[in-house]
């Protein structure tokens, strides 16, 4: 299937081929730009189709007062300078943490536990079926259904940033 063309968000004329993610004041903005406009901000043609993160020059000079590490150093090395950098560059670090540890990793206390339960139950179900313990298998099947429902509720809540069940019930029209 032919890929749908997207117009450059900067010049509005040519085809946008590079995704540029820009952080300004901790706010993430995603742009599709053409090769010519990308070249103006120093993005190489070879990076077409890659996602490129660019910070404004001012943002890159943002410095951690404890260790002197700059945001530019974080971008260059992928490393932080000291424990305080995690507070200082929090907005920039969160996407990195989510990339390595999974989306929503910072607030997954509930869903991770549930997912783990689900994997364990699926494994127990498979074992029960293999060993022809069909009563146990039915029990695990029912539990799996219950946990899957809880995970779905949990995911909807985190997507909508709802903190309690009342909000969810209202949203679901219950």
């Amino acid at each position, binding site marked *: 299937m032919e890929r749908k063309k997207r117009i450059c968000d900067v010049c509005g004329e040519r085809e946008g081929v590079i995704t540029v993610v820009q952080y300004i004041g901790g706010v993430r903005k995603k742009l599709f730009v053409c090769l010519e406009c990308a070249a103006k901000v120093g993005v190489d043609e070879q990076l077409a189709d890659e996602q490129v993160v660019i910070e404004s020059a001012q943002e890159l000079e943002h410095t951690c007062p*404890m*260790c*002197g*590490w700059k945001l530019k*150093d974080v971008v260059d*090395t*992928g*490393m*932080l*300078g*000291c*424990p305080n950098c*995690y*507070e200082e560059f929090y907005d920039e*670090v969160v996407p*990195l*943490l989510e990339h*390595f*540890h*999974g989306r929503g*990793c*910072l*607030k*997954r*206390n509930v869903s*991770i536990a549930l*997912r*783990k339960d689900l*994997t*364990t139950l699926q*494994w127990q179900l498979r074992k029960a079926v293999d060993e022809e313990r069909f009563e146990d298998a039915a029990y695990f099947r029912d539990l799996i259904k219950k946990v899957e429902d809880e995970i779905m509720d949990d995911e909807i809540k985190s997507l909508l940033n709802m903190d309690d069940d009342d909000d969810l019930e209202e949203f679901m029209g219950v």
Partner: protein
Amino acid sequence: MNNFSEDKFFSAPQWFLQKSESTDVVMFAEAIAIRNVAGYSFCLAMSDDEREEVKSMLVDFLRDGDYDTTSAKSLTPMERMMFAERWTISHKTALHPGASEILINEDESESAVVCNIEHLWMRTVSTLENLSMKTKLLLQSLDSMELEHKWATHPQIGFLSPSPAACGAGISISILCHLPASIISNRFARIHSTAESYGIKFVDPWIGGFDMGNPFVKFTTSSLVGRNPDDLLADISMLAEEIIRIERLAREEMNENSIVLEDKVMRAFGLVSYAKVIEMWEFLEILSTLRLGAVMGIIDVPLHKIDEMMVLGQQAHTASMVDDGPDPLKIAQKRAEMMREKLGINEMLE
């Protein structure tokens, strides 16, 4: 001061040769903990004075244990690579040791690196059966250190590291698996999806990338934020159980058509018997086939002999046995000789 004896490089680490019920599939299990001292910059950004201060406080504490200590600088690049090939230090530390200190216990089952990427990198290895006990001992030792030095943590993230990938539980757990039958019978996709559901990635046992054809696969917990060591241990144990089940089932199925399996193993044995050079790219494949043959009782070679070859046949280990410089052809020739010697083929041919 370098306290290491060069003789140790002529044999595989003792811990690696220990066998248990699961070693036919899970060759070993490893826990690596990382810690950084609160109130100090991480290694990349710290001043020389800070580095010396952190180094001396951590090394002093660790020296009270059963470790031999050496400065990474006093090791030659070849020695560092050999330690990486023995999984004693990471490949990254071997390549870029900086001003770090390396501490290794006598049987190399425990090691620590101070002030390389992390302030403290500590590793323990064991059989799968002993993993939980060894991990708890490692964590206890870190807890006792914390009475003197507070570790850097963040309320939402957990233990902090200069690398966001290593933050979280402060520990990662790995298993090295031998999966020839699962790969041949196309069951690896199932293992892959199970691993993925636990947030576990698979990597090359030494460098970290992954070669799809390599039957030796290291599974490592990679999703660490919001997790604790017990979660990770439980995940790895369940994954290991599933991997063992799948691999043994695949081996049983292969054995049903035993002539094909026997042919494969005997071809590998014949190749080692007569080949004059064995390059690195074919080494692991031959070794894997021989190991499968030994496990299935097709060839009468003890498993520990084959596992020893897995270490001694690595590039730096073999290069160190070549007298006149690291010529690639001579290294490949030495590897072939070493394999024949370990398998007792020279005596058989005489």
